[in-house]
């Protein structure tokens, strides 16, 4: 085929640099985001707003508590950094849902919306008269999406305990089985780091938000064909837990509970983090030949008898891994991270088992990631020049599309910033009437 190389062809069509010249997949949607102190809700509507949906964030007059969740209390132009990233592309209005007048206004907005996202405890929206059963009477096409700690039904759904990232992570089964093993004969007091360890980033909230976004889009497809809206229910305790691939399966078959195994892997060999002269690398080889290639690459083909390795299973057991890991680490400590990465690429070209080679990747700190030319070239950290907050680096969308590429137009807005525009657009409330509502504490 005499055509342009594929990489060029793709880049010409999906490079974020040209995103603004392309259509948007969801620009016919209006979404109300009522989430409060809930990153999952915010993240969900961020994903949809990147695809062009008009998202209206509805905050109580004092603003969302999430705006105060920021590392070490650091603010940028009076804004918390989490919110600075996740307020992206949204219009921000205030509305007092505790006031009956405020709830009437919400109903008017819901009548004109396609999707509503909310994160109050189950029953709160119903008590306010703006639950799904009530709003579907006004707008049967509405997709009503609720994110809550335990879901909308089931005995624990009544529980009123607040929901946070570290709580949701604890409720999945992943934190339990992640972390360093307590060294033999040591106590937790001596090794306070050898405990069940959660992921640092808010992956649990992100999972809940992403699952809900997938649910909303599936419901949208159904609505496209039938005209019917519906209610959706995500429990944060279920969302992150869903990524467990075999813990529940092994337990039901063997009554074996997956425990912590440090940076080794119970499901694969060789598949671990290993120390280097100046940091650490990930080594990955899911096939016997890749493990052999690793042995060869570090000059241990003969010493380790790699030619005679027969079954990967011989290395996968716990005892075997604990025996081999220190031998591997002794080798990786002889090189820098960069050297090991280069060695694996070279081995893939010239090694005895080439093109087979172990996957070696540097364990980066996020500053190294953020300054990596590859990611910069792919537009991941292109700053957003925000009219309020100035140029800000936030991470861009994590996928690229040839017809309807995602984009970040602005980062966030101060509380109530878009009251004038949104209430004028949807409720025809001009300055005179809006001022009265403000004075009455409704917006």
């Amino acid at each position, binding site marked *: 085929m005499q055509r342009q190389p594929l990489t060029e062809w793709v880049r010409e069509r999906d490079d974020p640099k040209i995103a603004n010249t392309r259509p948007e997949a969801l620009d016919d949607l209006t979404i109300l985001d009522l989430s409060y102190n809930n990153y999952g809700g915010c993240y969900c509507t961020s994903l949809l707003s990147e695809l062009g949906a008009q998202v209206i964030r509805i905050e109580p007059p004092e603003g969302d508590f999430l705006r105060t969740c920021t590392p070490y209390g650091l603010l940028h132009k009076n804004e918390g950094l989490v919110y600075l990233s996740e307020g992206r592309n949204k219009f921000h209005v205030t509305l007092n849902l505790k006031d009956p007048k405020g709830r009437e206004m919400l109903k008017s907005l819901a009548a004109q919306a396609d999707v509503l996202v909310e994160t109050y405890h189950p029953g709160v929206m119903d008590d306010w008269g703006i639950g799904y059963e009530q709003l579907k009477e006004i707008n049967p096409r509405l997709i009503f999406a609720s994110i809550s700690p335990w879901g909308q039904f089931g005995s624990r759904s009544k529980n009123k305990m607040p929901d*946070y990232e570290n709580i949701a992570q604890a409720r999945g089964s992943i934190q339990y089985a992640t972390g360093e093993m307590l060294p033999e004969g040591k106590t937790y007091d001596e090794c306070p780091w050898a405990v069940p360890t959660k992921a640092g980033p808010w992956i649990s909230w992100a999972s809940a938000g992403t699952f809900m976004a997938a649910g909303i889009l*599936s419901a949208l497809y159904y609505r496209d064909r039938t005209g019917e809206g519906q209610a959706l*229910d995500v429990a944060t305790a279920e969302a992150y837990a869903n990524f467990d691939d075999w813990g529940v399966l092994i337990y039901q078959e063997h009554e074996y509970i997956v425990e912590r195994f440090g940076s080794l892997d119970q499901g694969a060999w060789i598949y671990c983090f290993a120390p280097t002269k100046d940091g650490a690398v990930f080594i990955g080889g899911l096939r016997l030949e890749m493990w052999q290639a690793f042995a060869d690459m570090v000059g241990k083909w003969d010493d380790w008898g790699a030619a005679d390795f027969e079954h990967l299973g011989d290395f996968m057991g716990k005892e075997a891994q604990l025996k081999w890991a220190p031998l591997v680490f002794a080798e990786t400590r002889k090189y820098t991270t960069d050297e090991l990465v280069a060695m694996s690429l070279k081995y893939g070209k010239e090694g005895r088992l080439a093109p087979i080679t172990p996957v070696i990747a540097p364990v980066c700190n996020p500053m190294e990631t953020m300054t990596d030319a590859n990611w910069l070239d792919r537009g991941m950290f292109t700053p957003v020049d925000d009219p309020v907050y100035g140029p800000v680096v936030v991470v861009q969308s994590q996928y690229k599309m040839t017809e309807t590429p995602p984009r970040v137009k602005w980062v966030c807005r101060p509380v109530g910033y878009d009251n004038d525009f949104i209430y004028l657009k949807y409720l025809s409330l001009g300055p005179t009437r809006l001022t009265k509502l403000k004075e009455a504490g409704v917006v």
Partner: protein
Amino acid sequence: TWRNYKENKNSRPAPLKGIKVLEVATLLLGPGGPGFLAKLGAEVIKCEMPPMGDTLRSLVPFGFFFREHGCGLTHPNLSKYWIGLDLHKPEGQKVFRDLAVKADIIEENMRPGVLEKWNVGYRQIKEINPRIIYISKNGYGQWGRYADENRPSNDGGSQAASGFAWMSSFPGKPPLKSRLYTADAYGGLMGEIPVLAALHYREKTGKGQYIEMSQTESLMRTMSWVWPYQGITGEPAMPSGNRDQCVCPADTFRCVDDTFVAIAAPAPEEFKGLCTAMGKPELAEDPRFKDHLVRLQEENAVAILGIISDWVRTMTFDHVMSLAEEHGFAASEIRSARDIAEDPHFRERDYITEIDDPLDGPMINYDFPVMMSKTPPRVNWSVRPVGFDNEYIMAQVLGKNKQEIKQLYECGALGKWADVKGRRPATTWDGKTGLILSREPGYTDGGRGE
């Protein structure tokens, strides 16, 4: 709205009913996305390279099999149709292209360019089906320096290169890899957002498109504040173990009996509640702690977390939990896989769902974690040996007769399992159960006479 949800699950349509998906993918990242679509009601045909099939079949954690297949295989592969199709062969490519004409979505996770070499890349498929939505998932994306270098990648590499692992460790300790294949699992899900959005766009315009997703970039996207923090301060973001730097207090603590408890209490009422529970209500008024933004400052956060940690060390787990209920702050045990498997709440919701599989027998697994009132997702069946559904798909979708199917076997385009545990059916299989179309001996194995 939710009354009898579990009982009525199968009395309603699934949301993606009628959507047809083709999958050419191995391990977790690639199969994960179509796996979610299958739970949402799409018909997913998984194409494996015969006779060994998906590398994931080799993933046997600590040697534990599940009904004679690898424990890892099930999670991303429920409710799919399985064909063994050799895409190196022109006849195999022809079969794939015939299937692609009728498909809505194609998902793949080979290295860039591999499918084009097999004549089933996006540029080739769109010629025969311009409505196709085609997604490629991998570690580094389709273009850029790493793609040009043809760097191999996988989950651990993405956890490492994204900074995600760095941020998930204890300060001063070596970076920690998650027990979870986070980049695979999350990437598998994330790719379906643009796919489903593209479906909506296609409903409006008739146009398909090509989508690429890097699982490394996908993890970066979850690290929200890290990037503006680095942009503003010029410093690398640092890990902090179980402590959440953005929410205070939020950490994992150790009780008197050495069980662990996660606690969070940042909002004013919650923090007051926690201070009262600790018998120190005055802390809620302490100028170091009163305001969340001030409390988050390093020195103050360390101080209040120290106070809470000392208190929890004197408490039993049950006592902490009852105080949390009473005083309105958040607390949780660190739940294991057993706690999930046996959670009665998850059973009530049918989130942990019972599958009655013709091959694997009764089992539990996860349903899609979005309950949908009109179109409930569901899980119908478990995983299959390599090429198990060849006859059904060839006859039902492509209308091929016995003779034509036989020819495809003879030229090697179609194939079935190797006689290897995890690839073949369980030893207890009777040669019929679970087959959809043809149950005659000598036909189902493509005339190999096994």
